[in-house]
C-alpha cells in the first residue's frame, strides 16, 4: 500500500518536473514548480527527514515560489519578444542532450554508491552530547558544520544587497516595493489581521523547538517573513526605507554575532567557531537568537524587492 503511494508520488513529481520545463508560459511553469516543491516535501517526510521537509516547504516551495511568481509577472511584458528569438533546433537539441547527460551522470553516481552508503551519522551521534543540543540536524548545522551556516547567512545578505543594487539612483534609500492600497473592509486586510498572531506564534515555536526537535531559525524566519509580507501587502504597514540605520544594523547583527562567537572560540577553544566546553548550548542559542531577526528581515525584504519610491510613504 505504502509502496503504491510512493510510486504514485514519484510519478507525480516526475510529471510536474517535465511540466515545469516544457510549459510555454513562465507563470504556468512556476505554478508547476511550486506544486513540485510541495510534493518534494512529502518525499522528505517519507524519508524521515522532517527538518529538510520543513525547509523545502518554507523555502523551496514557498519563498522561492513567491520570488519566481514575481519574476514571471515582471517578465510578462517581454514574453513575446523572448519567443520571437527562440533558439534554433541545433541549440535546443544540444541543451536537451547536455541536460539528459547530467541527469544520467547524477543517477549513475547515486547507483554506484556502496551499500551501506558512506555516512558520518554515527560520528555525529557519538559526539552530539558535547553540543548539548537534542536535534542532530541543529548540532550539525551550528556545531560540526557551523562554517557552512555562517557563510549561508552571509550569502543571503549578499543576495539582498544584489536586489538593492538594482535600485534606480533617484530612489536609493527609499521604501522598497510599490505602495499597497489599503481597503479597511477588504478580505486581504481581514486575513492580515487574523493570521499574523497565529503565524508569529507558529514561527517562534518552530524556531524554539529547533534545538531539540525538527525546526529551526530558517523555517521559523520564513513564517515570520511571510506574516510581515502579508501585513505589508494588505497595506496595514509600509516597508521601511532602506536608508534606516536600525534596519541596516539588524541586517548585519546576525552574521556579526556569529563571527564574534567564532572569534571567542578562536581565543578560548583553539579554533574559529569552536565552542569552549560547557558553553556550547548557550553559544548556539545566542547565534540562533541573533540570526532570527536578521533572517526574517532579509527574507521579507528580498521578496519586496528594490526601492521604487522615495522616503515618503
Amino acid at each position, binding site marked *: 500500500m505504502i509502496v503504491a503511494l510512493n510510486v504514485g508520488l514519484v510519478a507525480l513529481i516526475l510529471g510536474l518536473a517535465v511540466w515545469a520545463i516544457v510549459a510555454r508560459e513562465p507563470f504556468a511553469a512556476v505554478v508547476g514548480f511550486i506544486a513540485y516543491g510541495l510534493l518534494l516535501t512529502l518525499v522528505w517526510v517519507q524519508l524521515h527527514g522532517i527538518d529538510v521537509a520543513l525547509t523545502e516547504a518554507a523555502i523551496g516551495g514557498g519563498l522561492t515560489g513567491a520570488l519566481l511568481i514575481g519574476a514571471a509577472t515582471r517578465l510578462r511584458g517581454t514574453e513575446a519578444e523572448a519567443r520571437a528569438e527562440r533558439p534554433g533546433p541545433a541549440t535546443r537539441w544540444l541543451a536537451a542532450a547536455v541536460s539528459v547527460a547530467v541527469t544520467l551522470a547524477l543517477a549513475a553516481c547515486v547507483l554506484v554508491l556502496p551499500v551501506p552508503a558512506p555516512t558520518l551519522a554515527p560520528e555525529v551521534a557519538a559526539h552530539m552530547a558535547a553540543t548539548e543540543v537534542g536535534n542532530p540536524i541543529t548540532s550539525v548545522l551550528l556545531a560540526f558544520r557551523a562554517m557552512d551556516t555562517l557563510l549561508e547567512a552571509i550569502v543571503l545578505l549578499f543576495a539582498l544587497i544584489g536586489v538593492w543594487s538594482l535600485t534606480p539612483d533617484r530612489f536609493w534609500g527609499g521604501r522598497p516595493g510599490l505602495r499597497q492600497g489599503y481597503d479597511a473592509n477588504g*478580505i*486581504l486586510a*481581514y*486575513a492580515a489581521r*487574523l*493570521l499574523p498572531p*497565529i503565524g508569529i506564534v507558529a514561527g517562534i515555536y518552530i524556531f524554539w523547538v529547533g534545538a531539540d526537535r525538527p525546526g529551526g531559525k530558517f523555517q521559523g524566519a520564513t513564517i515570520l517573513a511571510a506574516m510581515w509580507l502579508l501585513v505589508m501587502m494588505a497595506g496595514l504597514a509600509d516597508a521601511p526605507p532602506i536608508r534606516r540605520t536600525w534596519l541596516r544594523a539588524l541586517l548585519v547583527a546576525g552574521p556579526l554575532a556569529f563571527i564574534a562567537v567564532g572569534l571567542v572560540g578562536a581565543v578560548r577553544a583553539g579554533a574559529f567557531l569552536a565552542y569552549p566546553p560547557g558553553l556550547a548550548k548557550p553559544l548556539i542559542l545566542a547565534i540562533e537568537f541573533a540570526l532570527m531577526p536578521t533572517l526574517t528581515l532579509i527574507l521579507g525584504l528580498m521578496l519586496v524587492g528594490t526601492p521604487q519610491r522615495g522616503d515618503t510613504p
Partner: protein
Amino acid sequence: MSLAVDLFSVIAVAAGAFFFLAGTAGLLRFPDAFTRLHALTKADNLGLGLVVLGLLPQVGGVVAGLKLVCIWLLVQLSGATASQLIARGLRRRGAPP
C-alpha cells in the same frame, strides 16, 4: 467498538476523498473561472473537513486532534481569502460574474 470507530474513519475519509475528486472534476470541466473557484472551495472545506473528521478518532490524543482541527480552519481561512482575491481580480479585469 474499535471496528465501529474504524468504519466511521474509513467512511468519512472516503467521503472527503470523493469531494476532492468532485472538486478536481469541477476544476477541469467547469466553463469559467468563477464556477471553477466554486468547485475548488467545496473540495477544500468539505473534503478536508471530512478527512479531518475521519482521522480525529485515530490520532489518540486531544492535542493532536486539536492540531488537525486547526489545520482545517487555517486551510479554510487561506482558501476563502485566496478565492475572494482571485474573484475580485477577475471582476476588476472585466470578466462577467
